[in-house]
C-alpha cells in the first residue's frame, strides 16, 4: 500500500519563535497504526494538527495521500480524516445518533444512508443503536462516550484516523477494555491510524510501529520489538517508566 502520510523535514515554530518540532521526517503506510510517544508538551499533538491542517509547517512538507497539505482544501482534507480527542468533544446539544452523523450530514448524505451508517457504527463500537441513538452525551459513561467519539471519527469512512490520547481520561480497567476494542475494530476497518500518547504501555499494546519524540525531534521510529531492544538512553527512559507486564507479554510474541 502507498504511503498515506509523509513528513519531510518538517519544522514547526510558534509565532514567538520557540521551536516545537525540528526536522521531523517519517512515513505512515496505509492500514498502519503509528503510535507517537513522548512527554507532555513535546509536540505530539502538533504532529496530528499538522496532518489535518489545523496547523501548517514552518518549513518542510506534510503530505497526505501524496499531496502537500498546503495544496489541500482544508475542509475537504479534514472530512477525509477522522479525529478522536481525549476530551472526546461530543456536542452536548446533539443526541448520540446526531453526533455520529455530523460528517455524513456535512457531506450531504441522504437520511436513510445516514441512519443505516449510524446504526452500523454504534454496533461496531459495541453500543446498541436502539437504546443509545436518542440519548445525550451527558447520559453516558466516560468509556461509552469515547466509543461514540470513535464511531463519529469513522462515520464518513475516512482513510485516516488521528487519535490524541484517546484513552487518557479512562480508568485502567476501562482503558484496557478499550484497547481490546480498538484492536478488534482496527482488524475490521484497517484505517491508517496515527495515535499520540504518553503511556508507553498503551503504545506497545496498540502500535504496529512506534515513534519516540523528545525535545521536538523524532529520536526513534521502529516496531515495538525493536524499540524495546534499543540502547538509546532517551528511549530507555520511557521503557523504564513502563509497568513491566504488558511489555513482556507483547515482546514475547
Amino acid at each position, binding site marked *: 500500500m502507498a504511503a498515506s502520510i509523509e513528513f519531510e523535514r518538517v519544522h514547526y515554530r510558534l509565532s514567538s519563535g520557540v521551536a516545537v518540532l525540528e526536522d521531523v521526517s517519517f512515513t505512515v503506510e496505509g492500514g498502519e497504526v503509528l503510535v507517537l510517544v513522548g512527554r507532555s508538551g513535546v509536540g505530539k499533538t502538533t504532529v496530528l494538527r499538522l496532518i*489535518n491542517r*489545523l496547523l501548517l509547517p514552518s518549513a518542510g512538507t506534510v503530505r497526505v495521500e501524496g499531496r502537500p497539505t498546503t495544496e489541500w482544501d*482544508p*475542509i*475537504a*482534507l*479534514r*472530512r477525509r*480524516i477522522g*479525529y478522536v*480527542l481525549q*476530551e*472526546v*468533544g*461530543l*456536542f*452536548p*446539544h446533539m443526541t448520540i445518533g446526531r453526533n455520529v452523523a*455530523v*460528517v455524513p450530514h*456535512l457531506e450531504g448524505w441522504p437520511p436513510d444512508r445516514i441512519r443505516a451508517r449510524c446504526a452500523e457504527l454504534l454496533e461496531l463500537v459495541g453500543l446498541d443503536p436502539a437504546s443509545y441513538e*436518542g440519548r*445525550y*452525551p*451527558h447520559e453516558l459513561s466516560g468509556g461509552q462516550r469515547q466509543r461514540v467519539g470513535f464511531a*463519529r471519527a469513522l462515520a464518513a469512512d475516512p482513510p485516516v484516523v*488521528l487519535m490524541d490520547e484517546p484513552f487518557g481520561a479512562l480508568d485502567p480497567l476501562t482503558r484496557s477494555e478499550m484497547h481490546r476494542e480498538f484492536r478488534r475494530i482496527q482488524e475490521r476497518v484497517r484505517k491508517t491510524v496515527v495515535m499520540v500518547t504518553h503511556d508507553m504501555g498503551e503504545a506497545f499494546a496498540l502500535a504496529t510501529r512506534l515513534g519516540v519524540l523528545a525535545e521536538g525531534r523524532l529520536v526513534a521510529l521502529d516496531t515495538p520489538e525493536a524499540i524495546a531492544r534499543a540502547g538509546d538512553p532517551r528511549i530507555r527512559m520511557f521503557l523504564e517508566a513502563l509497568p513491566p507486564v504488558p511489555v513482556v507479554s507483547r515482546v514475547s510474541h
Partner: protein
Amino acid sequence: MYLIDFWISHRAEMLGALAQHVVLTLVATATAIAIGVPLGIVATRRPRLGAALLAFANIVQTVPSLAMFGFLVAVPLIGGVGARSALIVLFLYALLPVMRNTVAGIQGIDRAAREAGVAMGMTARQLLLQVELPLAMPTIVAGVRVAAVVGVGAATIAAAIGAGGLGDYIFRGLSMTDPTVILAGAVPAALLALAVDATLGWLERGLTPGATRERRVTFRAVAATTIAIALIVSASFALSGRWGTRVIIGSKNFTEQVILGELLAQTVERATNLRVDRRLNLGGTFICEEALRAGAIDAYVEYTGTALTAIFHQPVAPDRAEVYARVASAYAATGRTVLSPLGFNNTFAILIRSAEARGLHLKTISDAAPYTSKWKAAFGYEFLEREDGYKGLARTYHLRFAEPPRVMDLTLSYRALASGAVDLIAGDATNGLIKGLDLFMLEDDRRYFPPYDAIPVVRAQTLAAHPELRRAIEQLAGRISEETMRQMNYDVDVRHRDAAVVVREFLDRLGS
C-alpha cells in the same frame, strides 16, 4: 382597595397602556437580539473591535435613562417624542446584555467541542450555526432575559417622552402625589417584569443541554408559538393607524396639562374629521417645546409667562396683554401660531385657609401682610430660590414671617396648610386642591406675579394644511375660567375621575 377600583374604572385605558408597554419592550428587545447577537459574534472573531463595541455598550448603559430620553428628543431623524425615540433608548439599553452574553456564551464553549467541529471539517459558518450558537444559546437567552427585564423597567420612564405605557400612571401619580395612581402603574409593571423573567428563565433551562427530551419538545412548541404571537402583535401594532391625516396633541406631565391636552384633542375630534394622536404626559416644558419645534407634536397648551421666560428667555412683564403680544410674536418668528387665550391665568397663588380669610376679612396679599409676623410659611424649593419668587414677593409686600419659610414639596405644602402646620403657601391658581381643601387665594393686588395665561400653541404648517383646526380650537377661546379649570383639576386629582371623561362632560355642557 382603591387600587382595584382604579383599575376597574380605568380598565380600557389600563389595557391599552399595558399593551403599549409590552410592545415597547418586545420590539426593543427583539431589535437588540437582531443586532446584538451578530455584533457579539463579530466581537468574538475580532477581539479588538469586540472590546470597543462592548465598551460603547457599557458607556451607554451608564447614562441615566431619563437623561437619554431627554437628549434624544432634540436629535433629528431618530429623535423626537413618542414610541420611536423610546424604542431607540430601550434598544440601546438592551444591546449590552445581549451582546455581552453572546460573547461570553461563545467564548465559554468547551474547547474540545469546538476543536472537534473544526477537525471534522466544518466551515466557519457550519461551526457557528451547528455548534457555537446552539451551545451559547442558554447564555444568550440569559442575556435576553436581563435585557427584557431591564426593558420593562426602563419603558416606564419612556412615558416621559410620550411613548405611553404603564409609566403614564407612575408619572401621573407622582405629579398628583397619589400613591394609588403610582401603584396602578408600578404594580402591573413589576408583575410584567416578573412574568418576563420567569418565562425567559424557563426558556433558558429548556435550552440547556441536559433537559429531558419531552421537555425539549414541549419547549420548542411553546417557544415557536410565543415567537409567532410576538411577531403578529408587533406587526399589527406597526401597521395600525398608518393611514389618514392625523394631528398630534401633546401635554406636559401634570394633571392640568393632561386635561388641557385632552381638551384640545376632543375639541378637534368633535369639530373636524382629523384623526388625533395624543402624546400626553411629556416630561416638561423643554420636551414639549423641542417636540413642537421638531414637528413631533402639532399643538399643546403653554402658559404665557412660562413661554416668555423659560422658552424665549425674555424678562417678565406684569401686563397680560403685553406678555401675550410678545409671546405670540416670538412663536410666530419660529413657525408657531398662538391662538386666543383659553381664559384662565394659572399664576402663582398665595394661599391661606378660607377660615382665616373670612375671620380676618382678608382679600389681598396686602391685607394679609401685617399678619405674617405671626405666621409660618412653606414654599416649593423653586419658588424659594427664584428671583421672581419669594424674595421679590417679600420685598413687594413687606412680608416677615415668624420663622424662615420651610422648603416643602408643592403638593405636600397644600396638605400642610390645610392641617394648620403652616399658615401661608405659594401654590398655583388652578390647583384642584384649593377647592378640595377649602383654601383661599389672596389677590396679587400689586401685580407682582407675571401672567400665566393658558394659550394653545400650534405649528403654523399644520394650521395652513388644516384651516379647520384653527376654527375648532378657537371655540375654546375665553371659555375656561380659573374656577372651571380648578373644578376639572379637582375632579381628576381629588375625585380620581378620568381626565377624558371630565373633559367630555365639560365639552357637552359647553356645546349645549
